[in-house]
């Protein structure tokens, strides 16, 4: 039976290094000690060989190339988007996987500037990813989480975001509007490959009224 208070009144047990005697030194070099050390080494090698693929498995999602993710998705006929308006569109994620259910759906804001000019914004706020809503009267996107606001063209208007909305790359095929979607847009995994020439983080003045009037 072991009493937890065994060391009553004594200082906490400490291991004190001491000079080894000749017998102890000899024992440390015995055949059995050597074999034990060898077995530890063997297990270390086997453990490492086991660990490498396990770590590889765990890091699998991280090692994927961001550019490899995603594909072109159709958002329907361009005629659905009147010039000068901004509309919400749902589409099925091209990277939707088995069992994703409703989470495989994505929404984006499509702004038609002219017959051939579009802007397709991710709904994810550039601050922390909450879904922004479009207000056509005040021509602002507003975020419900921390009050980020963006102008019609996606530029930052006010609040905690440090940049404008993420934009998807788009193209027109016939009269169909297509965007390139994949990663969930964040500061590190931007929706738009077209915006690569822009700096990742653009802190803009809150008074920037937007580029086109």
């Amino acid at each position, binding site marked *: 039976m*072991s009493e*937890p*208070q065994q060391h*009553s*009144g004594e200082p*906490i047990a400490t291991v004190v290094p001491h000079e080894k005697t000749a017998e102890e030194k000899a024992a440390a070099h015995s055949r059995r000690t050597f074999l034990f050390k060898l077995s530890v080494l063997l297990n270390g090698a086997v453990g490492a060989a086991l660990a490498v693929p396990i770590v590889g498995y765990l890091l699998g*999602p*991280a*090692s*994927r190339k*961001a550019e490899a*993710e*995603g594909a072109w998705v159709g958002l329907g006929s361009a005629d659905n988007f009147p010039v000068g308006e901004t509309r919400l569109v*749902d589409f099925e*994620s091209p*990277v*939707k*996987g*088995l*069992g*994703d*259910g*409703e*989470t*495989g*759906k*994505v929404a984006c804001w499509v702004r038609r500037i002219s017959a051939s000019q579009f802007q397709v914004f991710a*709904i994810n706020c550039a*601050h*922390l*990813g*909450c*879904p*922004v*809503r479009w*207000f056509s*009267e*005040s021509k*602002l996107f*507003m975020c*419900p*989480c*921390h*009050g980020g*606001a963006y*102008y019609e063209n996606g530029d930052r*208007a006010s609040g*905690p*975001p*440090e940049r404008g909305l993420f934009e998807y790359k788009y193209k027109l095929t016939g009269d169909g509007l297509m965007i390139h979607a994949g*990663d969930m847009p*964040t*500061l*590190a995994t931007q929706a738009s490959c077209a915006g690569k020439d822009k700096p990742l983080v653009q802190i803009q003045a*809150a*008074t*920037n*009224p*937007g580029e086109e*009037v």
Partner: protein
Amino acid sequence: MASIKDRATDAGLGAFNWVESRLGLFKTAWGFASHPTPENNASWWYVFGSAATVLLILQIVTGILLALIYSPSAGEAWSSLNVLNHNIALGWYVRALHGWGSDFMIAIVLIHMAQVFLFGAFKFPRELTWMVGVLLLLLTLGMAFTGQVMRFDQDSYWGLGIGASISSRVPLIGAPLVHLVLGGPTIGAATLSRFFTLHVFVIPGILLASVGVHIWMTLFHGVSDWPVPGRIVRKETYVKEYHELTAKTGIPFVPDAAWKDAVFAAAIIFAVMACAFFFGPFGPGGPPDPTIIQTAPKPDYFFLWIYAVLAFLPPSIETPVILVVPVIGIAAMLLLPLVSGEGERHWAKRPVAVLMVSVIAVSLGIFTHLGTYTPWSPIMNAWSSDPVPVKFLQHRTPLERQGAVVLQNKQCRNCHALDGVGGERGPALDDVASRMTEDQIIRQVLQGGGNMPAYGNALNPSETKALTQFLESLRGNDLAPAIDASRELTKTSEMKAPAEPARH
């Protein structure tokens, strides 16, 4: 001839001895349970650690019960929670116990930590006990966050989005980190599966092992004695003094001290049961469908303060603060006992410690309170649901009333309140004209600034005119209008002396 009762007792004792002589655990366990502890710590202040352990056991039991029904699949999780709430007998109650148990556990762990800190119980020789305790706090919060993900509703979905967005701010490895957190390019099946694995296997495993180590160290060093002002902790003498105190005033922990632990634990479990019964389970809220954007995501109660802090950080320092401050905070908690492992234990002799606990508690309280009503968020439907109060329309010119229509249509109310109704992101407009001149109002509306977007692109000149006329009429209880002190000077010419500024 022995009576039947004696024979039954003998048989029972015999069976016990048979088991114990093979198992060898009961005597050892009793030795631990009845170890002597200084009389002065058999106090109601020393009951929080055991209560946290009891709550952990409640969480494990109710968690296993929920796992009988819950489907950890992105396509089914939300529905399976609704099945638990509505279609399984008492499923709602088990969910409620687990949800309320989680809130109580965090609260009790925080109280336990504050008590240990204020009583100086983290000092020598219990430094490592405190460090493992810090780990336990982090694991408990980890359980709370992953548990919120298990609910897999709208809040949970966007909460994951916030987690991914924070990960994306890590320099260099942002993108791989996002993919690692989400288990893929987007929030989906892989995300829920990995958070389920964390919530059910990984964190509970580490948590239980760490609780075991934590309790072992408490037994090994004994429960800390009641702090006395002037009784200084010194590494050379503390252990000896503690054991002298135990030898002199020691009482067996079980039952003489432990009955208070047991009563408090029972009260806490009863409180969890009462909350679960009367207030029911948490959610689930709306389905985790990212195309439903009519939502204002919010984290669970104990993360509201972080949510609030994230609204106030200026954009330019947000990323460094998010990434550096938690590391400093955790490091400070871990290093605390190494930095101040000796000295006074009593709170009366440690004003800085008392001040720190007070400031941290008040700050957390304020930010949590702000998080409950999010004054920084626009009220998305204020413009379409809250009409301009009639009193602001009386005795107004047609142009001013037209301006009220502009104010309403241009969604100004989403951020600005009138008569206490509307958003709180910007200042209330009830008496805006007593603070700003017409020129200032026009400039502010058209160019924005100070956290207000510019409306130059959203207003035509006639709308601007009407809006500013209406705003000019908002002077609260007939306060004097704001005046531009330099305006009178502009009316002067070289030919005549400046007029006296008009006085209102």
